Structures are given as structure tokens and as C-alpha cells.
């Protein structure tokens, strides 16, 4: 029934500022590469948006291994923002993912406001649909985390990038360690961000008691997955109470019901990260799961789930 499908599609539509998404589900940066691998598993145009692996001006080689370890209902990673750098990205990666009818959101990181603005300008020119400022990567000293933890430099970074970015929607990804999630959310809104996204991974550590060595070579990495979901839902709730711009929620989503939980808490859209490692089809299953939940609950528009928690 193509008509029904079409109808369903409309029902799932949400908006991030000027950007319309077919459905509220996107990939979480760093968990879908630049799109090529997932494209072997499903049609990328079924996604609300695809958020690409973080990119920096020059290539970064990343951290030594082991870079990942599983923990109880979660995992720690310290990839270290390994990426091909802006030039190779524009030349080799972006053209590929733009073949699909899906909004492309670039995730950027830098060591100074100047780097962020140069990245943002180049990406706007290249025609990406959205830019996500990663000011919260715990895995490299240079990963912008300084911006993520200090309100003043955070606000001035958002201001500087906003001044350069006209067409793509500007998403600011908050650090879960931000002292005062509400204040940082309001600062991002005040400086003109179109949306905020949270949460990034939470700094964490695990030690192998047999070898007595850290399970992550870099010692500290970022915790993601179902273990952090309750923390993420709480932060999304707090952030969405604090601002009027849309909030993109993420952290441990593995099913449509998890996504609905974030939306009830106040998220307009959601991103799926670690779940893709558990199952390459996870993002798509989350889209379907939201649809199924809406059907069960007689809800006509996905956008009406946002903040609809009863109390």
C-alpha cells in the first residue's frame, strides 16, 4: 500500500529549524562513518538525517588501540576523532553520501574558534544541510571540550560560527559534563543555534583486573549505550525545559520505544549511535518502532510526542 506508506511518512515528519526531516531519527556522529558502510545494509534515504563522523581541518590519526571495551550495558570508546580531514572529506566522502535523498549533517571539531569557523564556512559552501558543533568530545584534549565546559568560551564559539553559517541548520552538541545543562542550552539558543543535541559520551574508565591494565589504551574514554540512557533522558528533559529551540536526544537508544522516551521527555528528534554497532539495521528499526508505537497509541503526528510526558 504505497498510499499508506506515504501517509505514514508524513506522520513522522519533524522540523529542526528550517530543515524538514522525514522522520525524527538520525545517526549519531561517529557511529555511521560517512555513510558508505550503512548503505550496504539499507537505503539511507529512509533516515531522518545522516550525521557524519566528526571532521577537523586536517586529518587526525586517532588514538592507539585498544580503543573500545564493553562495560555493563554500555561501551567505552576512545577513537580519538580519527578522521580524514576537511579536504579528503569534501573530495571523497561528501559526494558519496549526497547521492541519497537524505539531509546530510556534518559534525565538526576544532582546537580554536577559527578552526570551527573555517570548517563551517567550507561545509556551508559544499552544501551540507546541517552543521553540528562538537564541543564535547572527551577523547582528545583538542576535541573542543574546553568550549564545552566553560560557559563564556562556549557562547563565543557558538556566536562566531553562527555569524558564518547562513543556510545549513546549526546544531550545538553539549557536553554531558557541562556545569549546568540549562545554562549551556540557553546560551546556545541565545547565540542563535537552531537546535541543540545531547548527550555525547560520558568520560569513563575500565580496568582489566587480570592484567591490571586499563582496557582502553588512553585510560579514559567515553561511555555510551543503554547504560547512560537514564542520564541522557534526564538531560534532554532539563535542556528542553530551558529552551524553545528543538532538542535532539541521544544516548543508549536501541528501539523505537527508547526514541519515544526521549521525545516524551522533550526531544524533537533523536540519534542512534552504539545500537548501530549491535545491529547495522538499528537506526531503521528505530524509525519503524516509532511508527508502530504511534499506531498503538493512536498518535497522528510524531511532532506531537515531543514533551508529551504526563505527570
Amino acid at each position: 500500500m504505497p498510499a499508506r506508506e506515504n501517509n505514514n511518512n508524513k506522520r513522522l515528519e519533524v522540523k529542526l529549524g528550517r530543515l524538514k526531516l522525514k522522520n525524527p531519527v538520525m545517526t549519531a556522529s561517529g557511529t555511521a562513518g560517512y555513510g558508505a558502510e550503512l548503505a550496504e545494509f539499507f537505503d539511507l534515504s529512509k533516515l531522518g538525517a545522516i550525521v557524519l563522523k566528526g571532521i577537523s581541518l586536517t586529518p587526525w590519526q586517532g588514538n592507539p588501540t585498544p580503543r573500545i571495551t564493553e562495560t555493563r550495558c554500555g561501551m567505552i570508546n576512545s577513537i580519538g576523532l580519527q578522521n580524514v580531514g576537511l579536504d579528503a572529506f569534501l573530495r571523497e566522502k561528501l559526494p558519496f553520501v549526497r547521492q541519497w535523498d537524505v539531509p546530510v549533517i556534518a559534525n565538526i571539531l576544532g582546537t580554536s574558534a577559527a578552526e570551527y569557523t573555517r570548517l563551517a564556512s567550507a561545509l556551508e559552501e559544499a552544501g551540507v544541510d546541517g552543521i553540528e558543533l562538537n564541543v564535547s568530545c572527551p577523547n582528545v584534549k583538542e576535541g573542543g571540550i574546553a568550549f564545552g565546559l566553560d560557559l563564556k568560551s562556549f557562547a563565543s564559539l557558538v556566536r562566531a560560527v553562527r555569524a558564518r553559517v547562513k543556510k545549513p541548520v546549526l546544531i550545538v552538541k553539549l557536553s554531558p559534563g557541562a556545569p549546568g545543562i540549562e545554562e549551556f542550552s540557553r546560551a546556545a539558543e541565545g547565540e542563535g543555534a537552531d537546535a541543540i543535541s545531547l548527550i555525547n559520551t560520558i568520560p569513563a574508565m575500565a580496568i582489566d583486573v587480570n592484567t591490571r591494565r586499563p582496557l582502553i589504551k588512553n585510560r579514559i574514554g567515553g561511555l555510551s549505550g543503554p547504560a547512560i540512557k537514564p542520564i541522557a533522558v534526564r538531560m534532554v528533559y532539563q535542556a528542553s525545559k530551558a529552551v524553545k529551540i528543538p532538542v535532539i536526544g541521544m544516548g543508549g537508544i536501541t528501539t523505537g520505544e527508547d526514541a519515544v522516551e526521549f521525545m516524551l521527555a522533550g526531544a524533537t528528534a533523536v540519534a542512534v549511535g552504539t545500537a548501530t554497532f549491535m545491529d547495522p539495521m538499528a537506526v531503521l528499526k528505530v524509525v519503524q518502532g516509532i511508527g508502530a508505537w504511534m499506531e498503538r497509541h493512536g498518535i497522528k503526528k510524531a511532532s506531537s510526542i515531543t514533551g508529551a510526558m504526563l505527570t
Partner: protein
Amino acid sequence: MGFSAPDIALPKAEPGQFFMFGVKNCEKDPLLKRPFCYFRRRGNTLEILYRVVGKMTSIMKGLRPGDEVEVLGPLGNVYPMAQAVCKTPLVIAGGVGIASVYPLIERFKGSAILFYGGRSKKEILLRKELRAISKKLVVATDDGSMGFKGTAVDAARDFLNGRNPDDFVLYSCGPNGMLKAASALGIQGYIASEEKMACGIGVCLGCAVKTKEGYKRACKDGPVFKTGEIIFD
């Protein structure tokens, strides 16, 4: 352990490839699937060979016929076999690394020489089958409880003494220490890395292997790499 899928044709796997393997019913702990080499196929059943070391493998041990599992694959690249037409395949395997080279040796139909090492006799599996499918099998154990006392690479070095390395093509799978030592034997060939993996499909960048051209992904760019390509530190 073997598994089959009643409704779908089992995919064709090649030597070197692997599957990501998960159990059902245990909610989110363990969270991630685990990688296991393509070991062999018997009728409509795909088999993997595994050692119980932790969370997932302990649960796997408790599985009973009929239990559902989740399998993704086959994934990764394949041991190139062209060179083995004019050269003799010299295979060095350590521990459960034997699972990776088993189907390769089968393919070579009796032409491969296998050096197979383990800590002790207990770790040496499938001795009869291996002897049957390889030209020559040398078992090596660290404690000398079976075969050569020392590592499989030591045994191979002894064997190569006086022979021309160019007559052989290397295939090796085992712990990093073994791969490093095997690469230093001076034989061209292929080694299979077993870095820890989260996704198995190339998106997490967790399974990084340091190569001359920077980090590569064991799961997508490997697990099979040319000798000399990987930088061991």
C-alpha cells in the same frame, strides 16, 4: 558450535572472513556481538570454533539446540590464495587462530604445511583432522607438553633453516606477538589480525590496526593484511 537458519540460504563464507555473533534473550548485557572466524560448513550448518574466555563465550557454552542466536556476516576480506599455486602455503596458527586458517588449509587440499602452537597440550584442538587435511602438521607447545617445545614460529624457523623462504607463502593467525614474529620470518604472505571489535562493519573505528598508511580497520580493510603492512609496536 554450529548454527543454521531454516528459512534462508546460508551465505557462502570464504577463508579469513568472520561473523559477528550474539545471543538472544539476555537483554543488553552482553551488549555487543562478538567476532568469530568462519571455521567450516557442514551441510546446512555453519560452524565456528571458540574458546570460553568471558561473558559471551560463557553464555554460548550454555546454549542448547534450538536456541536462537544472532549472526551477522560473513564480514571482512579473504586470504588471497593465488600465490599458493606456485608456492607452498606455510601456515602458522596460534590458539583459536586455528579456526581462521582451517578452511584455508582445507582449500589447499593437502598442500599446506601447518605450524600450530598453544600454551599446552590442552589448547591443541582437532589434531586428527588437521593432520588429515595438511601436508605436514607441526604442533608446538610453550610447555613442551605436546610436539615441539616453543612457539609455532620457532618451529617454523627451524623448518625454514636451509630452505628458501621464497618458495613459501605465509598465512598466519594468532595473537599479536605471533603475528609479529611470523612477519619477521622473511616469508611474504598474509596475516589475519584479531583486534577487538565493536561493530564489525567498519563504522566504529574501534578495531584500528596501525599500518604503514595509518590506521586501518581490521573488520573492513582486513582482517587479512599483507606481511609488512602492519606496524607492530
